[in-house]
């Protein structure tokens, strides 16, 4: 990459972060919530793209680990309540609860590793669906922990006496009152930045190379000294921890979590995010996550002004349905016409403008594991 384009890239990053930092000063609550949900999705999608894109382990269990993180946080941070909705809680400080919830998701991932190490390709993918359904069953029935069908409240976040809840302490900037969402916005940004940075380091470093080699040829990886079973387990745990962190953030944004949020469709959403973004690309996962999480909300928001789309009960296409149709069509269109996903577009543009760029889109590229182990041409 030339110096000039490197400078441009840096400037772009600075501008983006500046915009993100100032956003809460302008946005309405609705968009803040959408943005926060997108942040949670980004974190989860990054975790899944390391597992499925970089390592080639197809997983549809992500929703389960997101749930573990979300409910784990509520349990660790929440207080024990008795009454109609009696749920258990440890009442730990929220920061500690966050860390513990992420670790808990990691442990849950480790528990699945005997299965993930044995199964391959689509068998792993579908076995992991099983985990989502089993998880749902537990969420509905372990009412003492989860609150059952009605769910349970998430303890608002706080950091060393600084409470995120409305009004404690009051901060007003530029005439805008800094409420819980605004504070969460910065927490979310920090977590996204940390997740992104960590994932980039991993993928570009020694563990990432080992994971990629496991995807491309388990035999070659093992022969080069990579302990394939250990790396597969490790990446599953890592991915679960990302999902867990996403879950914690979701719990904080929603304020109350219910089991239906964490069903099979959420797992599919995550898979679609990373495929739309371009498998194995961290940036792509982030773009895909924004697209998938913001699209239905945006359509919902603008339903009044969009043709064909009407409000709920209006008889025409409901916004949520319109979003689903766009979403389904986007999956098909991207796979048919954009093999590299959203991240591929940028790479292509850069390639056009900078022909000497050595990091161009290769023909190989990350792929899901294939069933045909065919030898290549003679």
């Amino acid at each position, binding site marked *: 990459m030339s110096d000039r384009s490197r400078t441009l890239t840096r400037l772009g990053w600075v501008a983006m972060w500046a915009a993100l930092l100032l956003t809460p000063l302008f946005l309405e609550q609705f968009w803040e919530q959408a943005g926060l949900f997108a942040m949670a999705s980004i974190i989860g999608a990054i975790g899944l793209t390391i597992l499925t894109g970089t390592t080639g382990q*197809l997983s549809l269990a992500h929703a389960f680990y997101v749930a573990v993180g979300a409910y784990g946080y509520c349990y660790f941070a929440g207080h024990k309540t008795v009454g109609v909705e009696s749920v258990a809680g440890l009442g730990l400080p929220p920061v500690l609860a966050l860390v513990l919830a992420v670790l808990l998701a990691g442990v849950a991932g480790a528990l699945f590793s*005997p*299965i993930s190490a*044995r*199964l*391959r*390709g*689509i*068998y792993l*993918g*579908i*076995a992991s*669906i*099983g*985990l989502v*359904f*089993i998880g*749902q*069953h*537990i969420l*509905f*029935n*372990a009412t003492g922990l989860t609150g059952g069908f009605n769910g349970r409240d998430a303890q608002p976040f706080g950091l060393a006496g600084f409470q995120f809840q409305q009004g404690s302490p009051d901060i007003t900037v530029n005439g805008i009152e800094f409420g819980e969402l605004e504070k969460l916005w910065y927490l979310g940004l920090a977590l996204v930045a940390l997740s992104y940075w960590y994932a980039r380091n991993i993928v570009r470093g020694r563990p990432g190379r080992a994971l990629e080699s496991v995807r491309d040829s*388990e*035999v070659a990886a093992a022969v080069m000294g990579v302990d394939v079973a250990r790396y597969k387990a490790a990446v599953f745990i890592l991915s679960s921890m990302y999902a867990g962190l996403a879950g914690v953030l979701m719990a904080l944004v929603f304020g109350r979590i219910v089991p239906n949020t964490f069903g*099979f469709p959420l797992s*599919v959403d995550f*898979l*679609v995010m990373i*495929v739309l973004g371009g498998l194995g690309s961290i940036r792509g996962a982030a773009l895909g996550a924004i697209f998938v999480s913001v699209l239905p909300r945006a359509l919902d928001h603008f339903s009044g002004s969009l043709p064909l789309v009407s409000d709920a009960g209006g008889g025409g*296409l*409901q916004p949520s*349905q319109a979003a*689903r*149709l766009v*979403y*389904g*069509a*986007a*999956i*098909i269109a991207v*796979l*048919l016409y954009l*093999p590299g996903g959203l991240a591929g577009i940028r790479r292509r543009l850069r390639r056009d403008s900078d022909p000497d760029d050595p990091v161009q889109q290769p023909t190989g590229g990350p*792929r*899901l*594991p*294939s*069933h*045909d*182990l065919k*030898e290549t041409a003679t």
Partner: protein
Amino acid sequence: MNQFVELLISGLSLGFVYALIALGFVIIFKATRVVNFAHGSILLLGAYVVARTHGSLGFAGAVLAGVLAAALCAVIVQLVILRRLRGATTDTLTIVTIGIDILLATELTRRIGTKVLNIGDPWRDHVVHLGSFSVPSARVAAAVVAILVLAAFTAAFKYSDWGVAMRSAAEDAEGAALMGIRLGRVAAGAWAVAGALAALGGVFFTTFPTPGVQATVGLSALTAFPAAILGGLDSVTGAVVGGLIIGVVTTMTSGYQDHIAFLGRGLGDVVPYVVMVLVLLWRPSGLFGTKEVTRV
């Protein structure tokens, strides 16, 4: 004891319905190496067409219409979308079917809304008494029809030109192509048959004792997934055995709900997945599936 036998019979009959659906997964996988996530929606389409047309065409005519519609839809998916992606990995194709499922399911959900449509079947809520056991007539019909269809399929698979072409292509697509077998036709045929089987499964999936055609039927048909996987995704026998296992296990679990209340409500919906995970732990390619071979 009485209850046990009744549950067993109704479990087996439900199992045959699952077998029809699971067989669709298997046929498509064998012919094109794609796991069809749109199968539930195609099934729902078939059932929806039956529910909409039985008034004018009569039940038999409506079933025929539903089967044709589902088969046509499956062929369109194969020809219009999946064929364009030649050279893509099979799992990319699998994700495309998720996109197709979302489109189909959304449109059908929009049409059905919150209604429960009647399929117009002649069995309604009648019950057949076999000795001291009583079983819903619709379930008996399901078992009979499913057995006949499975037998016909097996015969065609084993003895017809189509079957030989299917099995050759499934074992070695390139080898089959070199023998002049047209892979495109084999694939389209497989999708058509799978779609037809799904529609048939859809009919019996929405007869008594289930309430009728609802938007959620497509999702609950996903229960055939564990059936296909635990039998082995590339095994016809596996699909039937897997379907029966899942049918019996779910029916038993729901029937004895009270005895295992400590495991929570709605266990019948989860137990297929539990069984699947356990079987896969024991045999990673399912009961009858072919093991993947690593070559260097």
